[in-house]
């Protein structure tokens, strides 16, 4: 029953994301080391309780339907993203021949979910966040697809299951080290973190999430964490061999790699500065996208070798 395993993986990792998130914040902020671990362990549950106790607010003439749908869509997309990742040889919830393209569709629709979340509140700061994210999300998605196609080349397949299997001898991170780096940027963008958090950023007083409270905000935060988990699973599978390991391949290796990637991304999200959007767009189009082409070309050459 792959879906049960996937659910367990999702739940456990989301809690891990929440805990490591507050812990990393406290450590980087150099908070006095009193009860740091305890607070970090309790923080997610307390946040859930606070959100559930709180009323869901409304603004003047919001797009109610889309405001309610956006967090749900985001969460569902995270679920679909995780579902394409195999837990063990040939065991994935969605085992189709085109799961890489499906992952691409998940990336695209994520941009739409975030845009709708900012749009629907009918308030200026969330809307600016929504625009910024749409402008930034599309080029990042483009380069991530080049990078992913690079991983599909050695597997000669568009299926994530085959991509993991193709890394039996050597992981893709060794074949395409540039690819993993570029793909990790997508992870920050998909889960709205740190240097790629153009949607829910501090300079917009919370951005797209700035006007939501209560259960809707809880769902949104949950979806952000879940999307980070889905991304970590995808990155582990595409570049780090997924469930493969030195001894006894299995889901534990996948979980281990995910935890490492999640820690890495959460730490990066808290400790790297964000460029102003116009500057970031320039970097994306003129530096990172050509790098993605380079990565793809190099992957092709290595695959033909």
């Amino acid at each position, binding site marked *: 029953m792959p879906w049960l395993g996937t659910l367990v993986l999702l739940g456990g990792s989301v809690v891990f994301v929440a805990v490591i998130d507050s812990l990393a914040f406290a450590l980087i902020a150099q908070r006095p080391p009193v009860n740091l671990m305890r607070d970090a362990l309790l923080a997610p549950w307390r946040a859930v309780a606070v959100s559930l106790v709180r009323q869901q607010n409304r603004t003047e*003439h919001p797009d109610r339907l889309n405001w309610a749908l956006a967090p749900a869509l985001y969460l569902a997309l995270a679920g679909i993203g995780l579902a394409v990742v195999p837990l063990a040889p040939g065991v994935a919830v969605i085992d189709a021949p*085109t799961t890489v*393209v*499906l992952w691409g*569709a998940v990336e695209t629709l994520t941009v739409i979910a975030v845009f709708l979340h900012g749009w629907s509140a*009918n308030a*200026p700061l969330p809307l600016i966040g929504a625009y910024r994210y749409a402008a930034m999300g599309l080029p990042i998605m483009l380069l991530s697809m080049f990078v992913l196609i690079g991983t599909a080349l050695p597997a000669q397949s568009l299926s994530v299951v085959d991509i993991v299997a193709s890394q039996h001898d050597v992981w893709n991170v060794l074949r395409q080290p540039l690819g993993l780096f570029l793909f990790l940027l997508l992870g920050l963008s998909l889960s709205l973190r740190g240097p790629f958090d153009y949607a829910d950023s501090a300079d917009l007083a919370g951005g797209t999430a700035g006007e939501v409270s209560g259960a809707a905000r809880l769902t949104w935060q949950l979806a952000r964490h879940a999307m980070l988990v889905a991304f970590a699973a995808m990155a582990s599978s595409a570049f780090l061999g997924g469930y493969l390991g030195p001894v006894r391949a299995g889901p534990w290796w996948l979980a281990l790699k995910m935890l490492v990637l999640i820690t890495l991304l959460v730490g990066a999200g808290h400790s790297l500065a964000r460029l102003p959007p116009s500057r970031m767009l320039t970097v994306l189009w003129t530096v990172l996208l050509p790098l993605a082409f380079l990565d793809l070309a190099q992957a092709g050459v290595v695959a033909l070798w």
Partner: protein
Amino acid sequence: MVSGTDLAFWTLAAIAIVSGWRVFRTDSMVRSAFLLLLSFIAVGLIMLLLRAPYLGVATIFMMGVEMMVMALFMVMFMMNPAGLNPMNMVHQERFAIVAGVLAFAGLAAAVWLTDLPHHPLVAGRPVIRELGMELLGRSMLIFETAGVTLLATMIGTVVLSSRSGRFGPADAGSLPPTMTPGGMPAGRIPKKRSGGHGGHGGHAPSAASPTAGEPAHGHANDHPHQPPEHHA
């Protein structure tokens, strides 16, 4: 006797058609763009049912990007993108309805009257592999042509939409249409405006006045509107 596939097909078909219809019936431009996306997603899923996995997912993927851009353009150009002010953005509606119905009737009749060949896809055919081989094999030229066309499109798009043109700035001598007869001189544009909306600029600024005492959200605009320049 309705099979699961049939049920899924008709549900998706209903979603595709209803959302396609709502596209032109909703006030909010953003909703309208994403309703069209919903229609595309439903068609993409029907393609999956038709065992075209690559085409189906690729349609969803591509249309996601396209409709996101579409929504941005809608918000950019429309003066009332959220549809909070109901307004009539429809013309020659009766003619359009007749044309639409006729098109549907004609096509349906053609479908009905034609003896359609029945050679269904053989189960187990490696369709994605075949598509790849076709694209990069015998039909390489077609594929390359499509690629070159897309490149030409990119260049053309930049040329068309950028400000700097071959004969100076694209907006030099730009003339908005008139709101009222005898208003702004816009000689080539017939004075036939009646609905009170349409053009996006060049309207008398006098009506713009900030209102008092509103609470939270809404548009405000209290700087004097500058009439467009006349270079002509």
